[in-house]
């Protein structure tokens, strides 16, 4: 039996980390990630976890120390946001190539400039090409469950890749919601401990991590990394099935909400998907056939499955909480790619919303649905929700 608690998304991440009981946690405070490490630090101080917590002077050092610990064979975690992720970029980029399955909660916050502490996805969208598994969470409950799922997928011996679990800064990280925390023993049995098989401290099987690879070998290393990434889907499904036995619900690659007979659909990540569900319900009550697709696993991106889920929808609006200047917005770009293989493609429209934490209201999403149903779309020109002047 689980226990329901009224906690924030940040606390939900800390609760997952408590149950995961990592050997090492290295982090540096940054708004809005700080309360994750704050709460976790009290578990360390009170002896509730066995974790060695390493205080460092920057995020660059945080990820460097996490890499060192993980290479030795420990289960290491960190957590960050925005500028912190930017500062640790060098080591974040190296981690997948080193095949170190570090799991890190990322509390999404806009990247400077202008300086702004609030939520959008410009931090994570700057690192999606680096080879981390990327998972997105609508609310605090999903933050908690996705972290448990991520640790098993990342550490699976067929994968051995790092994973980030995303949540919206403030909107999720600082809002109090009911979260069901599942039984410690069951969760601990599910997450297990990291195998020492690949650790440098496994002296019975000495190995090298981080060797130089010149033009004669680098391509093969990267190809192997891509092979591992492509195996994530099957591992995710089997881990999700095990997790379902604890949570009592499914853990799909994406959530299809009232999509079955939908004429128009919205695609959106993280917390805005919750608000979009309310808009979908309101419009369904008025007899309009609308639905939502909420991507959960974003890297690797499930192109074929998403194509299949959207193949009968006439018009799709993709809502991006970040921009890719001079190019299609990141989520929109993936949806276009995904749908290209269809003979009869849906009409598409790109929308940019919520930058720097600007609110998105159910009414804004209803306007999107009205536009999608009216058919006056321009797939090559993005629209801005709530843009002034």
């Amino acid at each position, binding site marked *: 039996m689980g226990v*329901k608690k*009224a906690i924030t998304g940040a606390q939900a991440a800390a609760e997952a980390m408590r149950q995961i009981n990592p050997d090492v946690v290295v982090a540096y405070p940054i708004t809005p990630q700080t309360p994750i490490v704050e709460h976790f630090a009290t578990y360390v101080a009170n002896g509730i976890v066995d974790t060695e917590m390493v205080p460092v002077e920057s995020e660059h050092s945080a990820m460097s120390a996490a890499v060192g610990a993980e290479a030795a064979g420990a289960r290491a975690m960190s957590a960050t946001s925005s500028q912190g992720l930017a500062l640790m970029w060098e080591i974040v980029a190296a981690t997948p190539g080193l095949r170190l399955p570090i799991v890190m909660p990322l509390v999404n916050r806009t990247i400077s400039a202008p300086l702004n*502490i*609030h939520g959008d996805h410009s931090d994570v969208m700057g690192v999606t090409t680096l080879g981390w598994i990327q998972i997105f969470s609508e*609310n605090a409950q999903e933050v908690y469950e996705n972290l448990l799922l991520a640790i098993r997928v990342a550490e699976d011996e067929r994968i051995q890749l790092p994973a980030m679990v995303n949540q*919206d800064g*403030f*909107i*999720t990280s*600082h*809002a*109090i*919601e*009911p979260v069901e925390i599942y039984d410690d023993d069951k969760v601990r049995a599910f997450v297990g401990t990291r195998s020492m098989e690949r650790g440098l401290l496994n002296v019975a099987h000495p190995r090298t991590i981080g060797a130089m690879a010149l033009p004669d070998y680098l391509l093969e290393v990267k190809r192997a990394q891509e092979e591992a990434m492509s195996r994530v889907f099957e591992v995710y499904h089997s881990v999700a099935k095990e997790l379902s036995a604890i949570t009592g619900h499914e853990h799909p690659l994406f959530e299809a909400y009232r999509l079955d007979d939908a004429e128009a659909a919205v695609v959106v990540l993280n*917390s*805005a998907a*919750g*608000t979009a*569900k*309310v808009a979908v319900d309101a419009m369904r009550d008025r007899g309009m056939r609308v639905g939502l697709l909420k991507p959960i696993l974003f890297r690797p991106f499930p192109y074929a499955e998403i194509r299949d889920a959207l193949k009968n929808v006439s018009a799709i609006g993709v809502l991006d909480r970040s921009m890719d200047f001079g190019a299609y917005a990141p989520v929109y770009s993936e949806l276009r790619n995904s749908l290209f293989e269809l003979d009869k493609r849906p009409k598409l429209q790109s929308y940019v919303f919520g930058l720097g934490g600007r*609110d*998105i*209201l*159910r009414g804004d999403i209803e306007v999107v649905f009205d536009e999608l149903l009216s058919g006056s779309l321009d797939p090559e020109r993005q629209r801005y929700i709530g843009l002034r002047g």
Partner: protein
Amino acid sequence: MNDVYEVRMHGRAGQGAKSGAQLLAEAAFLEGKYIQSFPEYGSERRGAPTVAYTKIAERVLRSHEPVLNPDAVLVLDFGIMRSIPVAVGLGQDGILIVNTKVCSSEIKQLAGFDGPTYGVDATGISLELLDMDTPNVPMLGALVKLTGVVKMESLESVLREYFLSKIGAEKVQKNVTMLHRGFDEVSA
């Protein structure tokens, strides 16, 4: 009670709008309700205007919108009504509770609200008992008296749980007294 009961609390940083919104949510959670509570974060500094929200419902709350059409608005510092339109989105069937010694016609005019308006000297109660201006707890007492949105016992339990380790038993008891004083002393 509407499908979702929504409360908006306006105050100044340091007065406890965020904690007040959270205490109310936790009291409702204790009664088995679905809840959401979050503040608006600006550039935080003591004295700056702040706003915090509580949503209470019988079913899961999926929207992450701020509270735009509150059922009740609590104003922790009447001075902010000169610059903040606290009653925006508050319907005629909603209620406004202001931290003030007297709920005068000037206060009502300042609030820009024609509906039911109440006053409670939450700062006076807080200064008397804690020697600090933390009006959030008496304001919650007033809200319970006028709306019954949660039970007093629930708020009392949450106060004990929330504050005991932080401020000790004596001050927790004073907070419980403040809650009841707000309940008893609110008037139109």
